[in-house]
C-alpha cells in the first residue's frame, strides 16, 4: 500500500512538472506580457525597465521557466514565530473553522481507529481521515509551521503568490465543499430513487431535468439564480433570503455566532447551488445507471431471498455497491467543481482562487497563473490517489501492490 502510494506520488510529480512546462509555454505563446499595461503610459518607462530586469522578462523562455520553477520550490525565509502567530493569532469564526475542522477530524480518526479497529464498517471513515490528514498538511503549510514556500512574487504587485492562494483557498474550499455536499446529498438519493422507481413519472421528469441542467452553461445558471432566487424572490415575497454577491456582510465580524452562520448560508447558497447543479445532474444520472445495474445483480436476489426488508436490501446491499463507481466520478469531479468555481466566483464576487486566477490572467501575472494551475494539478493528483484508496476501502476486492 505504502509502496503503491509512493509510486503514485512519483508519477504525480512527473505529471506536474510536465504540466507546468506546457502551461508556461502556453502562457508565453499566448502573447502579451505583464508589463504591457504600462506601455501606453508615457511616464512608466523607468518602471518598465526596472521590472523587466527584476523579473527577467528579457531572458529566453526556458530560462524564465527555470527561474519560475526555482522560485516555485524555494522555501520562504520565514521565522517559526510567524507561523505560530498565524496558528494562534486569528481566532474568530474564520480562523476557528480550520482548527475545529482539523481537531474534530483528528479526534474522529483516532476514535475510529481505537474503538472500531478491524471493523469493516469503519474503513470508509478511516479512508476519509486520509483526506483530513491532507487538509491538516495543507493547513500546516498555510500556517508556515512545517514548511513554507512563496511560489514567487506576484507580478500584479500583491506579494507572495503562496499567501494569496492560501488566502483565497479557504473561500474556494468553503464554496466547493458546500457544492460537493449539496451535489452528493441531492444527486445520489435522486439517482437512487429514480432507479428504484424506474420508468415512473418521477424518473422521467428527473432524467429530463438532469439533461437540461447538464447542458446549461454555468453562467446562465448562476445569473438565473441571482435573478430568480435573490432579486425576484425578494420582490415577490418582500423577504431577502439570499444575497446576489459576496461572501459575507461587511459587519460580519461584529455579528453573533448564529447571525454569522445565517450570513454564511445566505451568501453561500446561490453560488454553491450554481456549481452543484451540474454535478447533481451528473451524479443522479450516473447513480441511477449504477444502481440499476446493481439492482439486477445476483447478490441482490440473494439478499431478497434471505428475507431482508426491501429498504435494507437497497440501503445496505445495493447502495454500497452502487456507490463504488461514484467515488471515482466524484473525485474526478473535484476538478469540475474547481472549474465551475472559476466562473461562479467571478459572477458572485466570491473571494476564491477562481477569481484570483482570472485577475492573474488579466494582469498576465505568470507566477500566480502558474501557481493556481499547479495547485489545482496537485489537488487532482492527490484526489486521484485518495480516490484509489477509497475505492479499495469500499470494494474489498481491490488491493494494491
Amino acid at each position, binding site marked *: 500500500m505504502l509502496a503503491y502510494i509512493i509510486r503514485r506520488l512519483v508519477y504525480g510529480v512527473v505529471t506536474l512538472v510536465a504540466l507546468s512546462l506546457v502551461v508556461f509555454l502556453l502562457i508565453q505563446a499566448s502573447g502579451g506580457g505583464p508589463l504591457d499595461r504600462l506601455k501606453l503610459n508615457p511616464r512608466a518607462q523607468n518602471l518598465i525597465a526596472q521590472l523587466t530586469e527584476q523579473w527577467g522578462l528579457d531572458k529566453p523562455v526556458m530560462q524564465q521557466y527555470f527561474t519560475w520553477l526555482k522560485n516555485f520550490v524555494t522555501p520562504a525565509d520565514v521565522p517559526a514565530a510567524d507561523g505560530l502567530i498565524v496558528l494562534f493569532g486569528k481566532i474568530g469564526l474564520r480562523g476557528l473553522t480550520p482548527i475545529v475542522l482539523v481537531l474534530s477530524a483528528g479526534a474522529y480518526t483516532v476514535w475510529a481507529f481505537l474503538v472500531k479497529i478491524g471493523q*469493516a464498517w469503519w474503513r470508509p471513515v478511516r479512508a476519509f481521515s486520509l483526506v483530513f490528514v491532507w487538509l491538516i498538511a495543507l493547513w500546516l503549510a498555510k500556517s508556515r509551521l512545517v514548511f513554507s514556500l512563496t511560489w514567487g512574487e506576484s507580478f500584479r504587485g500583491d506579494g507572495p503568490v503562496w499567501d494569496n492562494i492560501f488566502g483565497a483557498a479557504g473561500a474556494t474550499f468553503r464554496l466547493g465543499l458546500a457544492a460537493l455536499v449539496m451535489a452528493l446529498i441531492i444527486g445520489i438519493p435522486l439517482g437512487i430513487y429514480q432507479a428504484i422507481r424506474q420508468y415512473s413519472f418521477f424518473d422521467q421528469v428527473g432524467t429530463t431535468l438532469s439533461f437540461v441542467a447538464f447542458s446549461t452553461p454555468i453562467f446562465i445558471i448562476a445569473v438565473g439564480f441571482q435573478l430568480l432566487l435573490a432579486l425576484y424572490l425578494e420582490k415577490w415575497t418582500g423577504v431577502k433570503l439570499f444575497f446576489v454577491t459576496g461572501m459575507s456582510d461587511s459587519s460580519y465580524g461584529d455579528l453573533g455566532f448564529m447571525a454569522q452562520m445565517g450570513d454564511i448560508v445566505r451568501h453561500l447558497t446561490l453560488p454553491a447551488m450554481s456549481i452543484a447543479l451540474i454535478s447533481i445532474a451528473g451524479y443522479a444520472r450516473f447513480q441511477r445507471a449504477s444502481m440499476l445495474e446493481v439492482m439486477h445483480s445476483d*447478490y441482490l436476489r*440473494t439478499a431478497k431471498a434471505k428475507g431482508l426488508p*426491501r429498504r435494507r436490501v437497497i440501503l445496505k446491499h445495493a447502495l454500497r455497491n452502487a456507490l463504488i463507481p461514484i467515488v471515482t466520478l466524484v473525485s474526478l469531479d473535484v476538478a469540475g467543481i474547481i472549474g465551475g468555481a472559476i466562473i461562479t466566483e467571478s459572477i458572485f464576487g466570491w473571494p476564491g482562487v477562481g477569481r484570483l486566477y482570472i485577475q492573474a490572467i488579466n494582469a498576465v501575472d505568470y507566477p500566480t497563473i502558474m501557481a493556481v494551475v499547479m495547485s489545482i494539478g496537485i489537488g487532482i493528483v492527490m484526489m486521484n490517489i485518495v480516490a484509489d484508496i477509497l475505492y479499495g476501502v469500499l470494494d474489498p476486492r481491490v488491493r494494491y501492490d
Partner: protein
Amino acid sequence: MRAVDGVSFDMMAGERRGVVGESGSGKSVTAMSIMRLIEPPAGEIVTGTIEFQGQNLLALPEDDMQDVRGGRIAMIFQDPMTSLNPVYTVGDQLIETIMLHQHVSKHDARRIAADALGDVQIPEPMARLDDYPHQFSGGMRQRVMIAMGLSCNPDLLIADEPTTALDVTTQAQIMDLMLKLAEDRGTAVMLITHDLGVVAGFCDTIQVMYAGGIVEYGNATDLFGNPQHPYTWGLLGSMTRLDESHTERLHSVRGAPPSLINPPLGCRFNPRCDFVQDICHDSYPALRESGRESQIAACHLATELDLNTIDVTGVVGS
C-alpha cells in the same frame, strides 16, 4: 409472455424433488414464484396459489413473506461467484440472516454462523467469517451459500442449479454435502437443474418441465427406468452414463425450445417430437396417469408408446 403456465404440484415434508428441464423451461421462474421474488417490471404472478404449510404465500402480506424467505424457505442460486455481496464479509452476510430470522444477539448469531460454516465443512469457520467472498474459491462460496440457506433451519430449501458453475469434482462434493445435510435435518429440497445426472443420486421425485409447464412427473426410479414423455426420453438419451461404453452416439432432443411469446398450437413439444401425430397439433395434452403408479405425463401417446424398446440410435438425426 407466460413464462410458467398451469404448473401445479405438491411436495411432501422432507421430500427431495428434482425439477429438470432445459433453459427457459420455467424451472427458475417456478422457484422464484414460490419465493415471490418476481417483481415488476421484470414480471408478475398473474394468478394461482402457492400453499405452504397451510398458508397461501401469494396472499401473505409482504412483512410475513419476509419471514418465510430465508426462514422457512431458503434458496440458493446458480452462480456462487456473483450471488454473495462482494463488499461485505461472509460473516456479515450470514449473521445478518440469522439475526433477522432467529432474533438472537449478534454474539450468538456469530456463533451460529460459525457452526453453519463448520457444517458445510469449511475449515476454521470462526476465522473465515471475517473474509470477503472473493477470498473463497467457487466451491467454498457455494458451501457458504448452502450454510446461509440452512442456517435458519428452513423447511424447504430451493437450490437453483447449485452446481452448474462448478467443476465436476466439486459438484459431487457439494451434492453429497447437501444430501447429508438435508437428510440429517429432514429438510425438503427442491433441486432445480438441467442435469439429470445430478438429480439421479439425490432426488426422491422428479418433475420434468418444458416450455412453462410440467410434462412428466414421477418418482426417480420409475421416471429414469421408464420415461413416459418423449421429451424426458430425449433428455435421458442425452445423458452420459459412466456404466455404458461410448460406442454408440449419444442422441439429443433436436431443435430448440419454442418461443413462449408465440407457442406452437397443441402440444408444445410437437415441433421437436419424433412421434408426433395429428392429435398433437390439435390439443394440448393434460397430465395423465401413465401405466405406473405415481407417474404422470402430459402426452397424448403416453400409454401407447413404449419408449424403452425403441432403438435409440435409429432416431438420431432423423
